[in-house]
């Protein structure tokens, strides 16, 4: 998924410590924040924008928004997401980790019915370098993000950040960063993110950052083989992880033959995607693929 500077953003949970800190960072960078939500502080202002009791209230007060971001604790996320969807929002960015999976499934069912795109849960967000970001990514660090032509997809925020750093160190830049989240059930899969980047005018090539667990990378590999644009390389984290253990992310677990590094590597290589031994190998891979530098 991609977010661009023309889109307007509502921040649910804007008054919290993280909510207000990152809202300030997003605004400084150029993200168009139009309002926030906190039922207990409705009628006040935070970060220079009005605070509403709910997303539906914001909408009824005439504040329109394209995207909503949720800085909400795990057990409150389902209600907040339902509120945003009821307000007509079509794009939700869900940062929260450790939401009960049953609540996530309720969100996903409602989103499907309403045609809403959920990014996450457990994502670090979306960045369009030089334009805007939604989430808690260091978009403002020029060593990591620079406007360019590479679309980057990552299940992990920290590792996605490292990959973006390596891309910039190698003299390239990004058209979009799509953090999709480390949970076992997420709204936007690697494959969905590939589709969006394939259709994006600014993107000329794609870099994927995956991890062990689930079968998203295998599904993505099938699609990568059919794309107009090259998926130049992928890094899959967790090749050295012991089986049967959750490696930090709830979704990063190998069960039997499912979710293994080998299965993902085989599928990606069959689709013509180079699988990197270390994230720093991305520079040479992009040069070899003759992707124009910026």
């Amino acid at each position: 998924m991609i977010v661009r500077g023309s889109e307007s953003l509502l921040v649910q949970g804007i008054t919290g410590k993280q909510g207000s800190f990152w809202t300030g960072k997003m605004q400084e960078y150029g993200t168009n924040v139009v309002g926030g939500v906190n039922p207990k502080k409705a009628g006040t202002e935070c970060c220079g924008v009005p605070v509403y009791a709910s997303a539906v209230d914001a909408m009824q007060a005439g504040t329109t928004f394209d995207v909503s971001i949720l800085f909400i604790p795990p057990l409150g996320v389902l209600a907040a997401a339902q509120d945003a969807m009821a307000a007509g929002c079509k794009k939700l960015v869900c940062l929260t980790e450790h939401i009960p999976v049953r609540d996530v499934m309720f969100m996903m069912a409602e989103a499907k019915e309403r045609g809403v795109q959920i990014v996450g849960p457990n994502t670090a967000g979306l960045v369009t370098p030089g334009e805007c970001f939604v989430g808690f990514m260091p978009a403002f660090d020029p060593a990591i993000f620079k406007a360019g032509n590479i679309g980057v997809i990552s299940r992990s925020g920290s590792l996605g950040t490292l990959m973006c750093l390596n891309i910039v160190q190698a003299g390239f830049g990004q058209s979009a960063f799509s953090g999709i989240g480390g949970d076992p059930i997420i709204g936007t899969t690697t494959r969905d993110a590939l589709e969006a980047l394939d259709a994006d005018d600014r993107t000329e090539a794609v870099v994927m950052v995956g991890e062990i667990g689930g079968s998203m990378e295998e599904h993505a590999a099938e699609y990568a083989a059919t794309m107009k644009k090259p998926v130049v390389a992928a890094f899959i984290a967790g090749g050295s992880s012991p089986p049967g253990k959750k490696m930090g992310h709830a979704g990063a677990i190998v069960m039997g033959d499912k979710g293994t590094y080998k299965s993902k590597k085989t599928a990606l290589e069959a689709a013509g995607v180079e699988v990197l031994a270390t994230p720093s190998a991305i520079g040479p891979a992009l040069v070899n693929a003759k992707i124009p530098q910026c």
Partner: protein
Amino acid sequence: MNFEEFAAKPLLAKVGIPIPTGMLAHDSKQAASAGEALGAVIVKAQVPTGKRGKAGGIIVADSAAETQAAAEKILSMTIGGTAVEKVLIEQRAAISQEYYAAILNDADSKGPLLMFSDQGGMDIEEIAQSQPEKLRQLAIDVRSGVQLSEVKALVEPLVDASVVQPLADLLCKLYQAYADNDAELMEINPLALLDDNSLMALDCKFVLDDSAIKRQQELAKHGTPDKLTGRELAAQELDLKYIDLDGSIGLLANGAGLTMTTMDVITHYEGSPANFLEIGGEAYTKATEALKLMLDNEKIKSLVVNFCGAFARTDVMTEGVINAWQELQPEIPVFFSIHGTGSIEARAMLKDRLGMDSFTTMDEAIQAAIQAAGSAGGANS
């Protein structure tokens, strides 16, 4: 969180799914009296792992003496690394057919998935491989729940017509148990059709969604906690994600993806990681505690601190590490790679207080750490 059979089955009974009459025994004396009371029984090891049967942890017995002997044998076993501490002794019933039934959280359909097979008692992955037509699946809308008519249509091709209705009823109850208990997996294998044409759950596997424990605290008391090392337990109390490994390179990183990758890259350069330790997410302020914990491991010969801050601010994490370093004054060499949110402040702090620089890339920091571990006599096994 895994639940052993004896803790999972009551969840089925609660929604009206028949289970065998049984008793839990912790020693051979309890087993003998259970055998006395129950007659022809099956004695089953209670451990949080599958493949008990193959390991010899399931024995049939027809008298109190046999039951006692079976229990004694099983209670002396270690299965999947766990010493058996209790057995479940259940009355045996005459079985005419065994089915498989399970409901789980499915990533592909993003909702509950009901799976049914008439090839019960087997490993379900084997059925999926060898006889896919014998394993039928139904994606369920979590909002409306399971529909009886859909379940009937699911099982119809695989079972006798007389069984369709009672079986579909039972599977709807299984869905209830799955939904009420925030299950990641609720599985009955085997689900038996008895000689009198009634149905009974002969085994049950229940996995509670870890993210739901905070609203299922009563239930979670009956689960089996993961087997942890001393350091892993200490980390859990601090709410840190820590896993002990066998190697000599300690690593501290932020975020699950970056921490796994640090392990991978250490392995790629032929070093061996001593641990997985992540201080990302909300834990990024706990760098001091994290460092103390990992330095407690004598196997560590060198240390990599790899921060790439997104949400986690590297200045806050680095300050924590420096504080701990100055307090503990460890003698092992440490190598930093710091990038992302707060990195300018973090690098300045590192220079100022420890007189050290961050490496330009993670790879360089890791290679330096591996070399240092080698020269410290910590050759990687």
